[in-house]
């Protein structure tokens, strides 16, 4: 039994080289099965009714919160459920916009600065850009090296800096960022540290305490789980201080006609309305898998990086395999990324093409878009071999006679 056998998708598509796991991973059979069983036999509302099925559903749901916390090295009360990582970052940025007390460590006001790395995904960039617009704050970007690695944070972080957002692993460059070092500098300046963990958790054991992160998020569908589900991590004292910004059932203790409602404690105050319950419960087996999988992907990364020696290939990211995950974005001289991916598709290889929700990073590299091959725990060497063979054939196909 190989890791691949745990994923029904590959039995249905045995001949496809699926190299787009950074966009969405395939789902574990155990995840699909768990959701099916819950929905068909145990479905009940959580956090309200008192009959035994409802109690069991609530318990399973809360167990997953605990598992997510364990996976990140956090406590259960530090994890809020959300619809996606995008949902979690919107929740965070919107809630920061609700902070009224100028003395709060979470207050962002006129002239304050929000510092982002250039490789932030649009799901981090845009919520914070909107927050800065509403609050009269300024968005600034950290410099990057030619290989797209974040640098210069010591000089960039200052007393105006209120938020520093650096994703742990870029979905474009495949490089891990030194979040711990950046966080130490940010904390010295009194700023909070936000880190997008969507890609990182697929490739490493990410510990939010070791990295010294204040807020983070990841989505379930990129780590073998269901879509429609994401998680927000917030360091306990800060999560307590963060106001709710999405209101409704389940998040409230008591509501009156003539005074402001009293909301539940964190993290439940962030979970208005019925949560994606069956998806959350189905995430349990994915977390078990994440705890048990092998994390050694260096062989796949090394093979993938052989693309650099193919004529016309320019890698958007570090060329060395150190401190890197098997995510490779590249430009191919004379051939547009759409044509590269179309050519690969016709030969049984699924790769991403476009700006990958990271337009700022692409502009910094001087390319409007790129092609990306991304691997993860179930990827196999033959997929990389086929990708490399095809990559050598792309320019001759499109540029013949030139």
């Amino acid at each position, binding site marked *: 039994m190989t890791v691949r056998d745990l994923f029904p998708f590959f039995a249905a598509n045995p001949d496809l080289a699926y190299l787009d796991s950074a966009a969405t991973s395939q789902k574990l059979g155990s995840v699909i099965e768990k959701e099916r069983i819950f929905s068909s036999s145990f479905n009940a509302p959580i956090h309200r009714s008192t009959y035994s099925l409802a109690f069991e559903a609530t318990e399973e749901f809360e167990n997953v919160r605990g598992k997510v916390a364990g996976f990140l090295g956090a406590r259960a009360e530090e994890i809020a459920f959300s619809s996606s990582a995008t949902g979690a970052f919107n929740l965070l940025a919107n809630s920061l916009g609700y902070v009224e007390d100028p003395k709060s460590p979470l207050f962002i006001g006129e002239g304050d600065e929000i510092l982002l790395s250039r490789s932030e995904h649009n799901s981090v960039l845009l919520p914070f850009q909107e927050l800065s617009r509403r609050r009269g704050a300024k968005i600034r970007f950290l410099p990057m090296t030619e290989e797209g690695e974040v640098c210069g944070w010591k000089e960039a972080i200052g007393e105006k800096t209120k938020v520093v957002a650096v994703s742990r692993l870029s979905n474009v460059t495949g490089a891990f960022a030194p979040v711990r070092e950046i966080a130490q500098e940010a904390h010295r300046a009194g700023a909070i540290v936000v880190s997008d963990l969507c890609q990182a958790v697929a490739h490493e054991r990410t510990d939010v305490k070791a990295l010294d992160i204040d807020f983070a998020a990841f989505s379930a569908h990129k780590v073998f789980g269901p879509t429609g589900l994401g998680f927000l991590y917030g360091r306990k004292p800060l999560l307590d201080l963060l106001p709710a910004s999405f209101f409704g059932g389940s998040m409230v203790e008591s509501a009156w006609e003539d005074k402001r409602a009293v909301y539940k404690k964190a993290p439940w105050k962030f979970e208005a309305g019925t949560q994606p319950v069956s998806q959350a419960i189905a995430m349990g087996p994915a977390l078990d898998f994440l705890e048990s999988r092998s994390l050694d992907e260096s062989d796949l990364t090394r093979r993938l990086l052989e693309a650099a020696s193919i004529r016309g290939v320019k890698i958007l990211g570090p060329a060395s395999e150190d401190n890197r995950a098997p995510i490779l974005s590249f430009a191919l001289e004379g051939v547009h990324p759409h044509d590269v991916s179309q050519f690969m598709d016709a030969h049984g290889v699924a790769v991403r093409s*476009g*700006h990958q929700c990271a337009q700022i990073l692409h502009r910094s590299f001087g390319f*409007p878009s790129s092609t990306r091959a991304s691997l993860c725990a179930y990827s196999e060497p033959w997929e990389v071999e086929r990708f490399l063979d095809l990559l050598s054939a792309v320019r001759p196909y499109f540029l013949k006679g030139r």
Partner: protein
Amino acid sequence: MEDLSNLYQEVILEAAKEAHGRKEDLEGGKAASSSHCAYASGFNPSCGDEVEMKVETEGESIRKIAWKGEGCAICTASLSIMTDLMQGKSRKEALSLYKDFLKLMDSRGEGEAPESLKDASAFIGVARFPMRIKCALLGWTTLKEALEGEGK
């Protein structure tokens, strides 16, 4: 790989290389004193490709189309073939060709392309790939915008 050669027909691959009408600088070259220039730009948000276009008209007819931009093979070939096809056409004929091309893109690759489209009928294969229709249409919608912006 029948699908691939259906999409990238020889005439398309050739046109992508030749890129008729592509200019480094849209203001290079002299326009005839009796002609009028209209400009428009187009953008494909899925890949970030941009095209800037200058349409030179004399009376009711299109004298010359020049464009600037980098795109995929489909986008570039479509611009090139459209540039050739529109040469000397009246505004009305151009808009009617635009409609024919739009219909071709909506055809899901079924049926036959109208004869009026000439080489542009090679894009019938693109209609089977919904993700690529925007690539083929970029130049055409930009031209339409330039022509209609004119009338306003």
